[in-house]
């Protein structure tokens, strides 16, 4: 650890990121430009989230890192080890124990508390980018609160598919002002964006930081006759029988066999530890990792 400055980044870089975070909190949903640094991992692996986490970490923190809800995927493991080595912080897989949670594409199932911080890894922070490629134009649209194009997009979903087909990175309006990309979380997670914890978003390649303070109003865009609907697979978890969690579909064989499991591995583990058993689960308690059913 002594080979690195605390949390890897140099102090001037951390100050620059910290100033961007504070402005982001003061203007919820607005994307603050920042001078993103090269990190010792490729773009797309969470370089924005890592920089935000590095600027926010103290030695007293307990860090949890999830990738699509799982603590044990390559991305999550490597980021956790990165901060173990460069910041010497404690790490955990338990949502309850964590003070900072860095996430890629999920919000944990467990309700987050006021003393927790959720850091999102964001690939494309600009919700209007696929509708308008020019940064000069999207910036103008945000400044004029001109979001008609986004509603046209959702309307075209309805006219083509009979419903709003956008299922992840579902656009939200923050505190009645800025339209924001909540990162590619499933729209099932959108209602959880109004939470007690501080939410920070970092996009490394795109060099943007934004934030949602606790209890901020976050409304998923919709129409009166086509209201927003959070969706999930219509099953219960096959390991822990949870009916309220977001599920991954796992193909079991080449004969159409499949199972549904919680995408949040810690939630599933804690439920199984508490004695819940799903269709393909076993009674045996689990101490490490998800079992192969």
């Amino acid at each position, binding site marked *: 650890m002594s080979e690195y*400055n*605390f*949390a890897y980044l140099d*102090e*001037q870089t*951390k*100050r*620059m990121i*910290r*100033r*961007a*975070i*504070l*402005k*982001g*909190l*003061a*203007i*919820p949903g*607005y994307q*603050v*430009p920042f001078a993103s640094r090269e990190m010792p991992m490729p773009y797309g692996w969470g370089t924005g989230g890592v920089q935000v986490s590095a*600027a*926010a*970490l*103290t*030695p*007293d923190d307990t860090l949890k890192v999830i990738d699509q809800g799982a603590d044990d995927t390559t991305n999550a493991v490597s980021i956790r080890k990165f901060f173990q080595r460069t910041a010497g912080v404690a790490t955990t897989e338990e949502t309850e124990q964590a003070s900072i949670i860095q996430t890629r594409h999920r919000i944990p199932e467990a309700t987050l508390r006021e003393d927790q*911080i959720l850091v999102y890894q964001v690939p494309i922070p600009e919700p209007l980018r696929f509708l308008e490629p020019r940064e000069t134009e999207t*910036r*103008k649209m*945000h*400044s*004029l609160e001109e979001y008609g194009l986004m509603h046209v997009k959702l309307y075209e979903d309805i006219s083509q598919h009979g419903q709003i087909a956008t299922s992840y990175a579902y656009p939200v309006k923050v*505190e009645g*002002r*800025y339209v924001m990309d909540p990162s590619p979380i499933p729209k099932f997670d959108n209602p959880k964006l109004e939470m*007690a914890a*501080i939410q920070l978003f970092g996009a490394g390649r795109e060099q943007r930081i934004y*934030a*949602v*303070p*606790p*209890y*901020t*109003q976050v409304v998923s865009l919709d129409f009166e006759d086509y209201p927003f609907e959070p969706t999930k697979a219509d099953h219960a978890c096959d390991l822990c029988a949870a009916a309220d969690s977001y599920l991954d579909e796992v193909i079991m064989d080449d004969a159409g066999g499949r199972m549904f499991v919680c995408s949040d591995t810690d939630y599933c583990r804690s439920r199984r530890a508490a004695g819940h058993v799903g269709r393909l689960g076993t009674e045996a308690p689990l101490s490490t990792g998800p079992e192969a059913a």
Partner: protein
Amino acid sequence: MTARTTAQADIYAGGFADPAVASAHAFRAALDVMARPGTWRSLTGAQAPTGLSEAAATLLLTLCDPDTGVYLARDIDSAALRGWLTFHTGAPLVPAAEADFAIGGWDALMPLDQFRIGSSEYPDRSATLVVEIPAQSAPNVTLTGPGIKDSARLHLPDIAALQRNAMLYPLGVDLFFTTGAQVAALPRSSQITAEG
């Protein structure tokens, strides 16, 4: 000669004992109060030579560097403080209209409209005020908005001026209030209602 040596020693003293860790803890306090307007947190670690609270000194060392222009209001401006700030942060001292951070008592910082409020395309390019107050007074306003569950309460030095600032949203300045080792914040996003 002796006096001069003492003054210089003051300038070099009072920095963070362990900069990386001390500024990390200080930032978390700043993050917490900016995310939860009206909440007070303890902020310690730095000592300015004269006329500046520990909370304000710590905030400056945590957030200022050669990239940020700092404006010292006349009530706290002194050769010793300028020397201390320059030695510890390298931040250039600038007029109010160019400041990223402005620091001082409320009356000395006024008028509020001399500070940058950002532009409609870049509302983040606005000043952050660090307002030194003598003590935590009884709240005179109720705050609502982002970061506040139901409502929060705070004492503001000039309710009307800060209500005008909130009306500029998403433009406007953001404020920290510091006294002793305590800090609270008022982002531009808070709605302010006068009490009583």
